[in-house]
């Protein structure tokens, strides 16, 4: 069950992880992108931290919406609208259910719609899609997430900047897949799934 408490804890851990891996994410974005993914995400989590700090006794919907707006207005680039849309869709859905599997599925639909990527296009979708599936069939976990991230390495990029490289994108992890991996790992670390 996603709660306000859990969401806050999750965002704290996600903040710490991005802060720590900022340079690594930008490095992943260098051979197959434009080298800014770490900086983009850092601006985003800074924004999330600031915005959440201003909320007084928020509902879950308010919390998720606040995260979405911070990401949309701070990240920019490709990842901003995608992560923003993901949390916006979760905010829309959370009155109906607080089940992670259902919320993340709604987020995934938003990401796919916004960016037009399918599974196998070497984007964050390649972490979100198997993870949503894993949440349903019970295989969700750190190992599964790491595998999903790793699976992008051998893919040919068909969306985002990496797609300009065609076959030369093979052999590199997708930076957005990696940051999505962090998102799910910190969800677990925050106690999201017992």
């Amino acid at each position, binding site marked *: 069950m996603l709660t306000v408490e859990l969401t806050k804890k999750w965002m704290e851990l996600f903040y710490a992880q991005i802060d720590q891996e900022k340079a690594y994410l*930008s490095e992943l974005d*260098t*051979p197959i992108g*434009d*080298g*800014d993914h770490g*900086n*983009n995400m850092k*601006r985003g989590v800074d924004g999330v931290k600031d915005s959440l700090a201003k909320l007084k006794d928020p509902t879950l919907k308010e919390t998720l919406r606040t995260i979405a707006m911070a990401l*949309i*207005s*701070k*990240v*920019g*680039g*490709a*990842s*901003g*609208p*995608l992560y*923003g849309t993901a949390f916006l869709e979760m905010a829309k859905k959370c009155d109906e259910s607080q089940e992670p599997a259902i919320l993340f599925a709604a987020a995934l639909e938003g990401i796919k719609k*916004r*960016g037009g990527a399918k599974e196998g296009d070497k984007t964050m979708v390649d972490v979100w899609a198997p993870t949503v599936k894993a949440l349903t069939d019970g295989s969700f976990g750190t190992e599964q997430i790491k595998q999903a991230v790793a699976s992008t390495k051998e893919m040919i990029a*068909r*969306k*985002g*900047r990496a*797609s*300009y*490289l*065609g076959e*030369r994108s093979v052999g590199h992890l997708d930076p957005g897949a990696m940051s999505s991996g962090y998102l799910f790992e910190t969800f677990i670390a925050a106690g999201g799934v017992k």
Partner: protein
Amino acid sequence: MKEMKKIINSPQDVVPEMVDGLVRSYPEYLKQIPETEAVVRSDQASMKGKVGLVSGGGSGHEPTHAGFVGKGMLSAAVCGQVFTSPTPDQIYAAIKAVNQGKGVFLVIKNYSGDVMNFEMARDMAEMDGIAVKEIIVDDDIAVENSLYTQGKRGVAGTVLMHKLLGAAADQGASLDELETLAKKALPHISTIAVALSAATVPEVGKPGFELADDEIEYGVGIHSEPGYRREKIKPSKELVAELLSKIDEVQHLDATHQYALLINGMGATPLMEQYIFSHDVLNKLAEKNITPVFTKVGNYMTSIDMAGISLTIFELAEQKWLEYLNYPVATVAW
């Protein structure tokens, strides 16, 4: 790996300081929209009763985009972080600032980030009842277009798109007319570049890729996206022959048509080299009995401090387009 050596204060302050410096240096043309990194014409009267024209994208392409804001060209430009699309709220603020009830036209370069952020802003504006249309510019022929990929990138040809649409908007074209014009002109604009070095994003601190001291790369994008071939540096004439042959494959250059030419320095390449390159392009075109009817040479769509040059050929399928290119403007950089 070379250390970054730049005239900046801190990497995080690059965009706000740059936008402030630009706007305060040219108050006769530019005004900053409060609490944003978006820039709008200071000559508000020139926008009255006309469709607004908004462009923007990541910073690092100076003088694009803000340098083209002014009467006869853009109404506003939105400056994102370096090489990073601006966010929807900023784009939305620019749309609102230029809307005169006739609608707002967006010029977007074909990058996932730009497209998504501009389209989110468009959704926001439409919810406010502002009519918005757009063109997604993808003039870089170095990248194959394909249904299954992101498609081609938007590069220096975007500046010509700004000029065309700006002139038409200033002459009272409607939102639909601008869309028709943009869609008609786009396939006639082809660009291709060659890089001698990559750009260094201040927050990254090292170049996007490394080229050996005697190496160049054809087809590189304006964010140091890799190109299609690396080889030893060659004389200017041979670079021109390579790039022009690529454009010829797409455009089938032919003396019965009229062409405009844009030779664009990427940031660190001096005009000396650009003029020599231009000499070679004009010679090569002359072999086909083509003399461009419009030429511009200079730094228009840069890639921070990248050394290199891009060549844009625009087939002027309609006589009106040449008039648009020659239409007078009041901007910092055209």
